[in-house]
């Protein structure tokens, strides 16, 4: 039951769910939430491979960096959301059109 394949499948499910959230939601916070899931799927893959394939700890280190960067990213992202909300009074993604044309 516990093999590389099962971890990969869990990671795939997480990734797909994150992707569905990103693609189907128009709420910026929700999109960020989806991104977190996608990142976690990737990190999980790293650790799984690290255990079952390479047998060293580089995967762990990498997932630690992913965690760090995801934290930074969500901090910035959420700050932008707040700022965006102050300007636009909404956090609907389709309103973010300042750069178009």
């Amino acid at each position, binding site marked *: 039951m516990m093999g590389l394949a099962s971890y990969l499948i869990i990671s795939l*499910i997480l990734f797909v769910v994150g992707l569905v959230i990103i693609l189907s*939601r128009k709420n910026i*916070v929700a999109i960020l*939430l989806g991104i977190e899931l996608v990142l*976690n799927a990737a990190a999980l893959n790293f650790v799984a491979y690290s255990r079952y394939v390479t047998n060293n700890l580089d995967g762990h280190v990498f997932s630690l960096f992913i965690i760090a960067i995801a934290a930074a990213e969500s901090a910035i992202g959420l700050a932008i959301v707040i*700022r965006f909300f102050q300007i636009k009074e909404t*956090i609907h993604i389709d309103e973010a059109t300042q750069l178009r044309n």
Partner: protein
Amino acid sequence: MFIELLFLTSALLTVGSAIGAAVTRNIMHSCVFLLGSLLGIAGLYATLGADFVAVSQIMVYVGGVVILMLFAVMLTGGKDFVSRAQNLLGLAPAMGNKWTYTIGLLTALVVVLTNVKLITNVVKAYPAKVIGNDFPSTVNQIGHLLVKEHVLAFELSSVLLLGALVGAAIIARPRRQG
């Protein structure tokens, strides 16, 4: 046996919460489901013998990111919490409607098919390897790795975090209109 139980519960928690987060139409609920999913992942890390990563996961995500998200949801005034009906400008509902979900699921299908293909290859390449239940502590080794081999990335990520911190503060700072 304990490990397998832990794996099972963690996996169910992870997948179930993730799907819940995707399905629910309330952003608050979504965040809480995310919390569950992240906890499940921490459990999965534990089953892989990645104790340090699991703890970091709980501390950073559960303690930091999700809380931050909840704050953001609240700070944005509670609007768009739940699925809006068709509103001004004819925008799609904030938490998605059947069209957006259709697109999302179609894309997901593509991704799943693609990945299944990849995973089968991977599984063929690395046939199931029985790993003993020995879980030595990784903290010591990770510490060495971080300050020796990966020291540049480590330092850079610290700078990045600092920059993100300051940047986030500057961006989110309310400005006087005028």
